[in-house]
C-alpha cells in the first residue's frame, strides 16, 4: 500500500544541501576559484562542496522523497534515509578536506582515501531505498523512471571515476592512474549524466503536476532517452578504456559535443510540449523560474560545443552555466515550492475538514522568492561573462551575489517551515521542528468499520 509518502528526513537532506551551497560559495568568495583558476586544492574543495554537497545531496534527497510519487510504490527500507544523508555529508566533507592536501596540508591526505568509502556507503544505502520501487515491473516502463535509472548508472560511473582519481591523489596504488585525462570525463558524467538526467526524470512528473498538464509519454521522450543513452554509453566506454590503460580518443568528445546538445534539445522540446498542454493559465513562480533554468540549459548546450572542442574559457563557462544556471536555479526555484507544499501537507492535511486550512501559496512570500531568484540568475549571468572574459574581480563579485541569493533562499525556507508568512489566526499553536517532520498531534479519528 502506498502509505507514508512523506519521507521523514526529506527536509534534513534539503537543509544539509543548502548548508553545503553556502559553504561552497563562501569558499569560492574567499578566492579558492576564479577564471582560469580551478586546479588548486581549495578550488577542487569548493567545486565538490557545490557539486557533491549541494547538487548531489539535493538530487538524492529529492529522489528519496519523489521516487514513491514517480512509481506509486513505497520506498524500500525508508529508515536508511538518515544514515545515507549523514554518510553523504561526511563523504563530501572528507573529500573537500582531502583536496587541501594539494595545497600542502599533508595531514589531510588520508581523507582522500576515506571519502570514496563514505560516499559508496551513502550511494549504496540510497540505492537500497529507491532501486526496488524503480525496478518494480509496474514502474520500469515509465519514461521518468527510465531516465532516473539511467542517471543512477551514471552515478555509479561517476563514483568509479572519482574514486580512481581520489585514490591516485591519496597515494593508493590500487586503481589505474587516470589523471589528468579522466577529469573531463568525470565532469561530463557528473553533469551530463547523473545530475541532468535525474533532473530530467523528476521534472517530467513535477512539471506536469505543477502546470496541471496531462502525463503522457511520447516520441520526444523516447528521443531524449535515446540520445542520453548514447551519450552515456560513449562516456562509459571512454571511461572503461581509460581504466584499461587506453587514451580517450578525440572522437568521444566530438560525439558528446553532438549528443549532449541533442539530448538537451529534445528535453527542452518535451518541456515546451508540457508547457503548451498545461491547464493552469498562469504558472506560479517556481515554474517561471524553472523556465529561466531551462534557458541556462540551452545556453550550456550551446557553450558545450566549443567547450568540448577548445576547452579553456568555453569549457569553464559551459560547466558553470550547467551547474549554477541550469541545475541550481532549477533546484532553488522548485525547493521553495516543494518545501511549502510538504510543510502544508505535514501541518494542514490532518486538519482538513476539521478546521479552516490556508492555501499553500499563503506559506510563501512570492516577492521575496522572485528577488532571491532574480539575484541568483543575475549572478550566474555575470559570473559566466566574467569567465568568458577572464575578469577575476567581476567573478568574485558575482559569486558574492550568488551567496546572498542562496542565503536569502535559506532564510525563506526557514520562514516557510515556521509559517512566518501566514496570518497568525491560521497558525497552529505548536509547529513541527524545522528539520525533522514528526507528525503534528491532531484530533484522533475513531476506528471505522
Amino acid at each position: 500500500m502506498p502509505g507514508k509518502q512523506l519521507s521523514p528526513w526529506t527536509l534534513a537532506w534539503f537543509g544539509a544541501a543548502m548548508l553545503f551551497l553556502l559553504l561552497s560559495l563562501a569558499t569560492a568568495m574567499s578566492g579558492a576559484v576564479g577564471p582560469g583558476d580551478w586546479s588548486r586544492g581549495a578550488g577542487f574543495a569548493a567545486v565538490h562542496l557545490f557539486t557533491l554537497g549541494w547538487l548531489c545531496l539535493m538530487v538524492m534527497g529529492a529522489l528519496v522523497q519523489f521516487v514513491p510519487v514517480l512509481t506509486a510504490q513505497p520506498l524500500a527500507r525508508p529508515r536508511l534515509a538518515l544514515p545515507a544523508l549523514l554518510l553523504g555529508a561526511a563523504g563530501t566533507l572528507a573529500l573537500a578536506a582531502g583536496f587541501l592536501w594539494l595545497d600542502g596540508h599533508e595531514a589531510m591526505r588520508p581523507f582522500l582515501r576515506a571519502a570514496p568509502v563514505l560516499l559508496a556507503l551513502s550511494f549504496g544505502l540510497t540505492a537500497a531505498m529507491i532501486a526496488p520501487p524503480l525496478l518494480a515491473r509496474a514502474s520500469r516502463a515509465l519514461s521518468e523512471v527510465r531516465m532516473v535509472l539511467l542517471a543512477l548508472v551514471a552515478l555509479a560511473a561517476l563514483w568509479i571515476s572519482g574514486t580512481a582519481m581520489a585514490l591516485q591523489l591519496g597515494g593508493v596504488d590500487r586503481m589505474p592512474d587516470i589523471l589528468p585525462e579522466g577529469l573531463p570525463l568525470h565532469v561530463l558524467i557528473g553533469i551530463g549524466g547523473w545530475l541532468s538526467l535525474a533532473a530530467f526524470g523528476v521534472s517530467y512528473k513535477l512539471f506536469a503536476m505543477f502546470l496541471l498538464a496531462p502525463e503522457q509519454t511520447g516520441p520526444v521522450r523516447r528521443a531524449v532517452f535515446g540520445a542520453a543513452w548514447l551519450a552515456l554509453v560513449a562516456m562509459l566506454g571512454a571511461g572503461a578504456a581509460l581504466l584499461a590503460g587506453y587514451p580517450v580518443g578525440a572522437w568521444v568528445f566530438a560525439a558528446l559535443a553532438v549528443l549532449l546538445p541533442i539530448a538537451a534539445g529534445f528535453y527542452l522540446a518535451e518541456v515546451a510540449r508540457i508547457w503548451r498542454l498545461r491547464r493552469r493559465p498562469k504558472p506560479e513562480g517556481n515554474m517561471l523560474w524553472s523556465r529561466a533554468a531551462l534557458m541556462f540549459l540551452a545556453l550550456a548546450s550551446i557553450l558545450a560545443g566549443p567547450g568540448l572542442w577548445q576547452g579553456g574559457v568555453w569549457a569553464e563557462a559551459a560547466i558553470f552555466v550547467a551547474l549554477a544556471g541550469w541545475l541550481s536555479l532549477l533546484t532553488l526555484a522548485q525547493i521553495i515550492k516543494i518545501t511549502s507544499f510538504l510543510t502544508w501537507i505535514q501541518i494542514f492535511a490532518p486538519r482538513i475538514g476539521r478546521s479552516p486550512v490556508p492555501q499553500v501559496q499563503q506559506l510563501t512570500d512570492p516577492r521575496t522568492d522572485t528577488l532571491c531568484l532574480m539575484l541568483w540568475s543575475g549572478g550566474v549571468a555575470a559570473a559566466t561573462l566574467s569567465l568568458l572574459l577572464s575578469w577575476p574581480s567581476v567573478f568574485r563579485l558575482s559569486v558574492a551575489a550568488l551567496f546572498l541569493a542562496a542565503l536569502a533562499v535559506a532564510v525563506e525556507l526557514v520562514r516557510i517551515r515556521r509559517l512566518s508568512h501566514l496570518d497568525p489566526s491560521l497558525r497552529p499553536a505548536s509547529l513541527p521542528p524545522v528539520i525533522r517532520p514528526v507528525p503534528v498531534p491532531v484530533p484522533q479519528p475513531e476506528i471505522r468499520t
Partner: protein
Amino acid sequence: MTAPAPLELDIRALLARGEEPFAAIMSAVDQLEAGQALRLIAPFRPAPLFGVMANRGFDCADRERPDGAWEVTFTPLGPAPDTGLAPGSAPGAAFWPDPAQVLDLAGLPPPEPMVRILETLAAMTPGEVLFALLDREPMFLFPELAHRGHEWAGNFAPDGLSYRLMIRS
C-alpha cells in the same frame, strides 16, 4: 516456501497512554512481507478491526490469553485476485454501495483535490461512498485516508488521463 514468522504488535501501552492505535496497526500491516501474518495484542477484543482487515484480505483468529489480554492473528488469504485496482485499494470495494457524493476534481491544482475530498468526507455519514475524478494519482491523500481510517479503491481510466477514486466514509 515457509511463511515468515508473524509480526507482533502490542497496542496495550499505546492505549494506556490514551493514543489511537489505528494508524499504528495500519502502519504494521503496510510493513508485512508477502505471506506474513500480523499478531495483535490488545487489552480488549478489537472487534471493529475484523471487518477492516477482512476487507484488506486477512483472515482472523482470536483468543483471550490467561493474563486477560486478547491475541488476534490476522493471516493473509493469499494473493488477492487482480481486480485492476491500484495497490492499496480495498479488495471489497466492488460490494460498496453506490456513491452518495460525486466530485469532478479535474483541472484543480494540488492540493485542492485533497482538500475537497477530505472536507466532503468529513460531512458524510459513515459507510457512505464518495466518488472522485482526478487528473492524477493523489499520492499525498492516501496516507491521510489511512490515518483517518477510510478505505479507498482507485485506478487510472483506460486512456491514462484521469484517475478514478472511490472512498468509503
